[in-house]
């Protein structure tokens, strides 16, 4: 099990409305990522689901049961905190066992669950250590292990990788994906890192100012963003937004919908050295596998071009640039997507 449904969930702190009526259905076994800029309400939303916070109004269901007024202890969920929140005075084994002991689980069952989690997360050799004697990555594994042994209805993960260094983050990301594939338990993951969102999620929930902007699979978000905000938030480097005249210069012959007020084109969909539009290069970022050019069109509009591979370009160069056919995104005056 692990089907979670939110109906018009609002959260206010005095006059401040942090969640503005969230409707969301998360299917059993799904890996859903909440993503959005700082202060968009993603962690607050997770806390409403966990039961650590209660919504000001609305309804939360887990497997068909209304849990809106049920405490965190009785929702059957497990949470991995950004700070790990391990009990610092307990050994790793005691950290894992503590929640199970609270449920008065037989000792043999506790030992077997701990052994299984330790094997899965490769933390067997750390059992007698305290959290203070562990590295960041080891602590993270223990925090995940503490959630795993509980065999919860769903895992809630609040920016669990944000305290790790870049290299460790990549490997832990892969391990989390493998863990989900193995356990097939519902996971809700909060992050502001779109790479984590894109690589881990079955579906991504993009939030802004306490409201959902779009819920979709990673590729759908990338290929068919519902509005300018989502289009700008997903994808790196960020999508270029141009006026219709600039877009016409980059993609001559491309039909522009009448309602289009602005046009988006991803840096990867701009080809340097091709077409009739000219771009003056202001900055070259040579990343080895990719060369990112920051520049200006003749109209003065800023534009970023991501060229797969290496290229010889320098600041001040004037390059021809063209957009790939069919790769333009159109938005109306209210920033909503307009189909071509």
């Amino acid at each position, binding site marked *: 099990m692990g089907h979670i449904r939110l109906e018009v969930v609002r959260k206010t702190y005095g006059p401040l409305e942090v969640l503005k009526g969230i409707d969301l259905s998360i299917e059993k076994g799904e890996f859903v990522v909440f993503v959005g800029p700082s202060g968009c309400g993603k962690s607050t939303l997770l806390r409403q689901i966990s039961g650590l916070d209660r919504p000001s109004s609305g309804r939360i269901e887990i497997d068909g049961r209304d849990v809106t007024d049920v405490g965190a202890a009785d929702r059957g969920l497990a949470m991995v905190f950004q700070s790990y929140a391990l009990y610092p005075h307990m050994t790793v084994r005691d950290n894992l066992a503590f929640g199970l002991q609270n449920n008065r689980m037989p000792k043999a069952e506790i030992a077997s669950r701990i052994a299984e989690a330790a094997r899965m997360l490769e933390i067997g050799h750390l059992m007698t250590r305290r959290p203070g004697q562990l590295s960041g990555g080891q602590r993270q594994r223990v925090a995940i292990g503490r959630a795993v042994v*509980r065999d919860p209805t769903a895992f809630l993960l609040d920016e669990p990788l944000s305290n790790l260094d870049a290299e460790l983050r990549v490997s832990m990301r892969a391990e989390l994906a493998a863990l989900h594939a193995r356990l097939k338990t519902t996971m809700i993951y909060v992050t502001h890192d779109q790479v984590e969102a894109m690589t881990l999620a079955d579906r991504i929930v993009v939030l802004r100012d306490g409201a959902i902007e779009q819920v979709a699979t990673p590729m759908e978000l990338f290929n068919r963003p519902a509005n300018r905000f989502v289009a700008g938030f997903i994808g790196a480097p960020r999508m270029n937004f141009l006026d219709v005249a600039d877009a016409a210069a980059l993609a001559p012959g491309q039909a522009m919908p009448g309602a289009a007020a602005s046009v988006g084109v991803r840096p990867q969909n701009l080809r340097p050295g091709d077409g009739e539009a000219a771009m003056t290069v202001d900055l070259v970022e040579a990343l080895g596998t990719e060369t990112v050019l920051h520049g200006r069109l003749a109209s003065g509009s800023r534009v970023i071009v991501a060229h797969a591979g290496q290229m010889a370009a320098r600041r001040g160069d004037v390059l021809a640039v063209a957009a790939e056919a069919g790769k333009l995104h159109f938005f109306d005056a209210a920033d909503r997507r307009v189909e071509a």
Partner: protein
Amino acid sequence: MGAVLAAPAGLLAHLFDAPMRLWQRIAGRGGMIAFFLAPNMAIFGLFVIVPLGLNVAYALSGGTALFLPQRSYVGAANFERLLTCGDHMDPATCRDDLFWIAVWNTVRFVGLQVVVLVGVAMVTALILNGKIRARGFWRAVFFFPVLLSPVVVGLIWKWIFQRQGLLNWVMVELGMDPVNWLTDRTWAFLFSVGISVWAHAGFYALILLAGLQAIPRDIYEAAEMDRTSPGRAFRRITLPLLWPNLLVVIVLALIRAVQVFDEVYVLTGGGPGTSTMYLTQYIYETGFASSLRNPGVAAAASLLMGGVLVVLTIAQLGLTRWRDRQ
């Protein structure tokens, strides 16, 4: 504005710069350290080291004369007088029964006061750490008695508990008979403990509150997710994480309880009889107030008490260092 305020300091520093450099060249690095430490060492020496030495000298001398040159050397006789007992548990069998009465009174006082004090401080800290209205106000209320002079504390409670005090007035108004609170041995002892707790609990509550606030909130949230009951969270999470602070509080409270004097002296004068006469009062009265003044015995008793305090202080320092290493 800042520049205007800094100008005199700058001028002063400029004036002293050349002579200090010269002095440093003459005295060297070690000399300069000694130079800057000298004023403090002089004060410390004059008011701590010299009196300590004098105290030892008095403890080894006899007679009622106040000035040391007029006193005779008696060796360990004063200590012998204090420590000689048929049965140390029964002051009546001791050469100096009053000393042992004071010792056992102090032991009883320390035993009860420290337990009650730590308990009250703990409960206060837990309440003040919770989500209560006007938390800042309540913190100030509980800390306020700490700011009062012990004599003021003693006087306030004396006005409440004395025969014609506030408490009896209220009881009479309610139709009850007045009680001689401070002339009853049990009540006097309990009140001496009570006002001492009232006067000091705020300080220890503050230490415990600081410890409670250092426990990250998300640990409690993790415990909540782990289905931990509030009682178990207190036993398994709060107490172990607060233990270092709690140890320091217990040892500090012990040290201060052994030294109890002023507020109780003002409240009961050590009475009724000798039922609230504690060790410091015994030393004070033996050395200065009694008609049979005996500075040598008082000095010996204060050295014995000092020994106990040194042990407790070393324990406290050790515990603080242990806590810092955690």
